[in-house]
């Protein structure tokens, strides 16, 4: 089984899935809060248009989880707010 590391915890994924698909498959629908209302957000458009699903990938911030293919050992940090 392949794994990525999300906020320090291993998360299994199937080869070919994006980071967002792996999170949703694991039952996670929210992994970020908004800047103003601190509303929980996860994947919405699923194709890179809406920017709701932002995460930090291998230290690079502002990545759309729905576009980044999961790779073994990839580290994903979820964001606390838009302006982190």
């Amino acid at each position, binding site marked *: 089984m392949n794994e990525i590391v999300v906020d320090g915890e291993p998360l299994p994924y199937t080869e*070919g899935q994006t980071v967002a698909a792996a999170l949703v498959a694991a039952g996670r629908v929210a992994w970020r809060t908004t800047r103003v209302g601190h509303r929980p957000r996860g994947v*919405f*458009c699923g194709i890179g248009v809406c920017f709701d699903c932002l995460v930090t990938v291998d230290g690079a911030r502002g990545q759309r989880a729905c576009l980044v293919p999961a790779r073994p050992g990839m580290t994903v940090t979820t964001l606390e707010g838009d302006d982190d």
Partner: protein
Amino acid sequence: MTEPADLVVVGAGPAGMAAAATALAGGLRVALLDSGTALGGQYWRHPPEHARAAVPTDDLHHGLDRYRALCRALAAHRTAGRLDLRLEHHAWSAVREGDGFAVHAADRREAPRETAVVLRAPRLLVATGAYDRQLPFPGWDLPGVLTAGGMQALLKGGSVAAGSRVALGGTGPFLLPVAAGLAARGVEVVAVCEAAHPRAWLRHPGPLLSNPDKWAEGAGYAATLVRHRVPVRPRTAIVAAEGGERVTSVRIASLAPDGSPRPGTERRVEVDAVGVGWGFAPQLDLLVPLGASLTDSADGNAVVAVDRGQRTTVPGLYAAGETCGVGGAALAVNEGRLAAASVLADARATTVPMNRRLAALRSAVDRQRAFARAMALAHPVPPAWSSWLTDETVVCRCEEVTAGAIRTARADGAPDHRQIKQLTRAGMGWCQGRMCGPAVHCLTTRHRAYEPAERLVATPVTLGALADLDEDPPVSTASPVSAASPVPATSTEPTDSSETDKECP
């Protein structure tokens, strides 16, 4: 491929694949780029090649024979060195350069690392498709509420269901394959809420009778839905989603013909995910800055204006597929072929006589366009949809601008979505108004088609990659520039200030 391309095609969905295959068959060298990890675009969205065995999704597709044939054709030309295929390349700008075009892209095959690439050719064909058109409603920003297309993308790309008990809502035939796909993966689809009524189709008997393949496709989905006991509710809508950290229920109401909820019909249904879509918005980001003229489409969108050969008003610039008006994959394939035929004719600078094959293509495009128009008229955005909104409903998800703020700005005299943006920041965030633009437009100006704001950067690109481009990239068909350190996606925001005065007279 080391020699320069004769044609750059942006977008490897049905239109772009067909266009590239036709241009290659006609002897041209083609560079084809797409942001996805596989050929197919959204319609034929697939996992990457190496993962197809692990993530089987073929059963979710329609028209796979055509997809495979196009894949085979493109693979053969790639082997022969005539096709420069660039997957996971995000085109962020297309500009005039001399007699041709330069397409700037970010190579994200090693994401999050990003490398800048420039692809040049005397001719450019834009087939960038469309994305779900959304209308806000109370609770639509709760986690677990997705676009219908997003749900299908998770399914087709990764075989992941967004929930186990799902309600779908909006309008248009696209809700049916999404429902069928979810049901096929064991999801309990508790309702498909279609705001329109099928009777509306009967006002367009001509396009109905002349497109039997569309009905065969629809009948296939209907059979799947009956088999899985999925209820399709005409003239109903999801008027609210409820929950705390995620959606837990929706409110469904019957609609009057104008789209307002009928009093007393509202009921609550428990769900763990929701999919919504109100047709599609064409992706015009590369075309508008190049100066291509737009025209009104029957579905409320402005689309790129093309002639009978898919030529835009900009010499050397062609368009095919949903950028020319939302009409589905079969139409997109034919438009792609037609566009490539024009490219071939124009490249040879000779008048190509109208042969039987070209005439048949044009006839098919005309027939399928008529169907698309009937579809748009039968599945309109309900005029009274805004009656679902409360003042607290978030309309702009990125900047968290509420319906109340937009109503106030409108009352203060803001005439359109651009002025609303200046007064409220709606459309000024990460997505640059792609999600809220059509809705804000509907809330302010209903009498003309929605034209997206001009965005000089079509997708985020790192500032480092932009800086590297200043160092005179060598002139070749593809110029890799050194990798840049990523910056947050907010790097797109400066484009916002570029909104021109001409848009707000």
